[in-house]
């Protein structure tokens, strides 16, 4: 019985493009993926891979989709509700950035597709705002699932799907290995990143980001440790080493990010080959 291989792409904004480098190596070696799981920034690349978009097209689509303009326009109703709650009652659908542009771009890229169109079973994660539980999307509109999965706290407003309000998937698990375990993966290849810390805390937003990074990085380690010990076979972390710092909208660095993903995957390739060659589970 052949081993079921899962690819799990965790949170990490543009760094998640390293998944395309990893995919290049797997394709070149003829190593098939049986399922793909994505969270936050990783949900975009999981979707590309799930839909069978080739590496060059995925790179080009990222450049068109993920640019600095996305955060240029403020969401003034949210600002007013935060600053003057007695005049403008606060609403839980809070986010400082006007999300119309990101939504428009997601519609252009994925609007025609549902999960059912994926060539490889695809799972995208978000977090239920009211219960704090992980939500795993595996059917319905891809745009809704991606928009929910990338609802970065304070930046993009939570997203409503079927009457439930969702925030970014990293809030429950920045690298959702558990989804792959639950869906029967034997070998799990992971690609995920810790959230960067602020060099200088010069604004309320940076202060909030710093707290968010501290919490999510500790959550990542705790969950990853648990899954490593709980899973019966293998979890292979692919950890690209970036010599250059990669920021949220550094899409011009995508070729470099892909290259580092490819390099990191090649380092683990001998072991992955050996593992897949053994038939016993």
């Amino acid at each position, binding site marked *: 019985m052949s081993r079921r291989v899962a690819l799990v792409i965790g949170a990490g904004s543009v760094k998640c493009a390293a998944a395309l480098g990893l995919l290049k190596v797997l394709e070149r070696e003829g190593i098939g993926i049986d399922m793909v799981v994505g969270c936050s920034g990783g949900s975009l690349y999981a979707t590309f891979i799930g839909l069978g978009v080739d590496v060059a097209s995925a790179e080009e689509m990222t450049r068109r989709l993920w640019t600095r303009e996305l955060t240029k326009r403020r969401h003034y109703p949210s600002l007013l509700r935060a600053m003057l709650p007695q005049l403008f009652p606060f609403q839980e659908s809070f986010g400082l950035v006007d999300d119309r542009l990101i939504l428009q771009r997601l519609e252009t890229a994925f609007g025609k597709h549902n999960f059912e169109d994926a060539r490889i079973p695809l799972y995208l994660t978000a977090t239920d705002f009211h219960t704090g539980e992980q939500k795993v999307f595996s059917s319905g509109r891809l745009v809704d699932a991606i928009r929910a999965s990338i609802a970065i706290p304070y930046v993009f407003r939570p997203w409503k799907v079927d009457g439930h309000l969702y925030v970014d998937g990293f809030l429950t698990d920045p690298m959702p290995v558990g989804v792959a375990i639950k869906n029967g993966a034997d070998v799990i290849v992971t690609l995920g990143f*810790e959230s960067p810390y602020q060099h200088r805390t010069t604004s309320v937003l940076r202060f909030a980001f710093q707290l968010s990074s501290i919490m999510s990085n500790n959550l*990542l*380690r*705790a969950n*990853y*440790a648990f*899954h*490593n*010990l709980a*899973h019966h*076979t*293998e*979890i*292979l*972390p692919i*950890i690209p*080493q970036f010599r250059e710092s990669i920021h949220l909208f550094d899409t011009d660095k995508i070729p470099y990010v892909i290259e580092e993903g490819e390099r990191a995957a090649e*380092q*683990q390739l001998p*072991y992955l080959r*050996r*593992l897949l060659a*053994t038939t016993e589970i």
Partner: protein
Amino acid sequence: MEVRVEKRGSVAIVSIDGSVDGTSAPDLVSSLRQQVTAGTVQLVADFAGTDYTSSAGLRALLEMVKETRQHGGDLRLASVRREVLRVLELSGFTSILQVYPDVDSAVASFPA
């Protein structure tokens, strides 16, 4: 994976070359357990030649850390390469395992 054992006083230094993974972890556990069974419970795993550890490797390390500590000893790591250290950090293992920059300091950390 290749395992070599050297005794230094009451401490056994177990040098591991290659990957600690699903295919090699049972051999590592077996080598370390031989020492514990023979009464040596102060162990240093020299990771200078270890280029990779997977989840199976982590489980093997945890198993032997628990076993040595149950017998009043410990399993401590030395000379861990940067890429392996990243995996140990990411999985929270650096909070439960003692990691030393070299074998000498790991050996010296045990009471004489």
